[in-house]
């Protein structure tokens, strides 16, 4: 019963957000600020995640596939494909559930418990249009961009790790990456990051917008937003793999 109620409230908030997405003048300024916070401000952590994921993938693959019968280019293929299809989107998503999801839930939760959302409504604002729409739009628009960043630095990190460890020469790594490259994999990664962006920001907005209580309530909303964001990313990852691969 509780779950149904939650789904109902979440759906209602999304419906209100969809309806008020036409009020461009209300959220225009906030949208640009959110694009910077969600996108630009997340680049350093995404670069870091990409480099280390690619590096570790290369080193572990080289360790596991150490055989005279397996060409070194296989490692390049495995690393680049894994990053493009799965790791760039999913690991970035999980990291951003913490970074972006927690920030959004805390911001809105704080605004709710300190009556700032009531103040917006009292002035005649549509608070959903003002607060929820720009954050969800920023997630949808910026996560695919961050996926590209994670992919580039992931493959680059893998290439560099192979070179500096001496386990995979760059030429072999790139040959493998090119040999098994399918453009569909990038489309798939894009779709995933788009969906993850929506999941993380919409859940965080929902949890923050309906936060209750004081500091404890905001903390609870933030934790729930992060945990639920991670769970639904993994669930969506599975469903998308079943549907699109």
């Amino acid at each position: 019963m509780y779950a149904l109620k939650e789904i109902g409230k979440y759906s209602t908030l999304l419906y209100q957000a969809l309806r008020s997405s036409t009020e461009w003048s209300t959220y225009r300024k906030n949208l640009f600020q959110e694009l910077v916070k969600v996108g630009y401000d997340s680049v350093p952590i995404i670069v870091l995640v990409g480099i280390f994921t690619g590096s570790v993938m290369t080193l572990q693959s080289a360790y596991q596939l150490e055989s005279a019968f397996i060409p070194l280019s296989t490692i390049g293929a495995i690393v680049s494909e894994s990053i493009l299809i799965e790791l760039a989107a999913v690991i970035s998503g999980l990291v951003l559930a913490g970074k972006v999801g927690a920030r959004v839930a805390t911001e809105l939760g704080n605004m709710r418990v300190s009556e700032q959302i009531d103040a917006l409504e009292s002035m005649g604002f549509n608070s959903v249009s003002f607060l929820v729409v720009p954050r969800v739009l920023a997630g949808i628009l910026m996560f695919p961009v961050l996926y590209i960043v994670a992919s580039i630095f992931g493959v680059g990190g893998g290439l560099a790790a192979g070179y500096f460890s001496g386990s995979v020469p760059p030429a072999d790594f790139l040959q493998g990456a090119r040999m098994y490259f399918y453009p569909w994999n990038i489309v798939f990664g894009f779709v995933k990051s788009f969906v993850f962006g929506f999941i993380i920001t919409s859940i965080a907005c929902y949890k923050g917008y309906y936060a209750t209580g004081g500091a404890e309530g905001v903390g609870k909303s933030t934790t729930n937003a992060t945990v639920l964001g991670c769970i639904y990313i993994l669930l969506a990852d599975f469903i998308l793999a079943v549907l699109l691969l």
Partner: protein
Amino acid sequence: MIEIKNLKKSFGDLLIWEDVNLKIDDGDTLAIIGRSGCGKSVLLKHLNALLTPDSGEVLIDGKNIFELDYVSQRKVRQKFGVLFQGSALFDSINTFENVAFPLRYFTKDSEEEIYRKVMRSLGYVNLEMAADKETSELSGGMKKRVGLARAIILEPEYIMYDEPTSGLDPETAEEINELISLMSDEFDITSIVVTHDMHSVLKVADKVAYLNDQKLSWYGTLEEMRESDQEDLVNFTTASEYQVKILGN
């Protein structure tokens, strides 16, 4: 004019109040009093439809606000200025921008015009010098005054004050009371003040509504309140020796 007719509100199984009937004439200052948790702020949030009742009507200038669509409701809300209990200032922007906020979205005023109006509004509350301060740098009393400057920036017909003097030292509370009287006397704004501070009631109110036992227990003018012998009202208004003293004066 605001008319409340047969209003009833409950949260789940918990009845807050029912059969609330009130009329607030233009230019009046109504104080809504009652013990903590009796639903004063809940009643206030029904006047601009921040909360929806179980049943009943709130007529703003003859229109039931709960029967309006969301867009029309938002227009009616712009007739109200609200001073929230915790001031509800936006902490991501400074004092000037907090006061300018409604102007930037609801008017086509130029920057010069916005500056002039904001400084005038801050002038009413004696805070021109705090225009550049971050909200985190303001004291509780200053936050209330900035909240009031923001509440009046669009020149509302009604102002609602939610516990305007709670948590303030007596001197600052007195300043806030004087500002409430100023808004009412100088600008002829209809005011609704939710408070349990009897000193504040005696300072600013023309009429008093007393909520108790999940209903509007008493309603009348300030003079009628002084003379009333209704037991629960007398118990509430004379709960401290200080209140007895000031009521006696």
